[in-house]
């Protein structure tokens, strides 16, 4: 009887965490996507490309560069409990993991937005040669309870045009 009770408590804690992860995590994600969309629309005028400026001159763009400097944007986004369990189940069934596609999408777009905001605050007119680098400080490979997070750094060369 006692064992049965503790099993029941464990199960209800698990389901409680799952529900918190699903609902609160869903709200957090929705809010984040909303802010990303708003800022992306606002910063649409600012060009970010992954070509070197030499290429732009080759295709006939008139580019008089005054100054250049290095900019980067960094973000760490953690998954919620519900996504973690989904990711764990995906180890058995395989297939497409929509929950994590949105997580990566959020992180990448946020990193690029931060790069843009930083470049604008330092007076740049465009960013060239954008690169993305994935980091890993929060990885625990050998445990089921691994807290996975997406850590992305976007970096590039900001140009000030005459």
């Amino acid at each position, binding site marked *: 009887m006692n064992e049965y009770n503790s099993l029941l408590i464990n199960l209800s804690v698990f389901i409680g965490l799952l529900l918190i*992860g699903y609902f609160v995590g869903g709200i957090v994600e929705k809010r984040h996507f909303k802010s990303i969309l708003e800022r992306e629309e606002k910063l649409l005028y600012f060009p970010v490309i992954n070509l070197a400026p030499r290429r732009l001159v080759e295709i006939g763009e008139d580019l008089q560069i005054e100054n250049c400097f290095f900019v980067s944007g960094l973000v760490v986004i953690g998954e*919620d409990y519900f996504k973690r369990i989904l990711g764990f189940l995906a180890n058995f069934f395989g297939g497409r993991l929509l929950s994590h596609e949105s997580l990566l999408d959020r992180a990448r777009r946020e990193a690029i937005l931060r790069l843009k905001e930083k470049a604008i605050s330092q007076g740049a007119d465009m960013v060239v040669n954008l690169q993305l680098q994935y980091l890993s*400080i929060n990885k*625990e490979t050998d445990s089921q309870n691994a807290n996975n997070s997406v*850590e992305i750094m976007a970096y590039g060369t900001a140009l000030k045009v005459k």
Partner: protein
Amino acid sequence: MFITNIDYVPSLKIIEHYGLVSGSTVRAKHIGKDFLASLKNLVGGEIKGYTELLEEARDEAIDRMILQAEDFGANAIVNVRFSTASVAQGAAEIYVYGTALKVS
């Protein structure tokens, strides 16, 4: 100091090059930040503590690279790349490297 990740400094001429310069730093997670992060892992979202930690690490790696370039007497670093390795559980290395140049 000009730092770019393209392979030249726009509108400036290369006078001399000094080869590869690099900077690296290994950072471990802070237990207080880790506790907050584990709470954050319940509901997802940005983990600000880790973002700050990695930003500090990135800045330190770049600073070390710049110091090395200044030792050579360079005033620009081009083709800057980042590389990372996870050396131990909860610790990561950020390595940044590029070519030191003198431009004018």
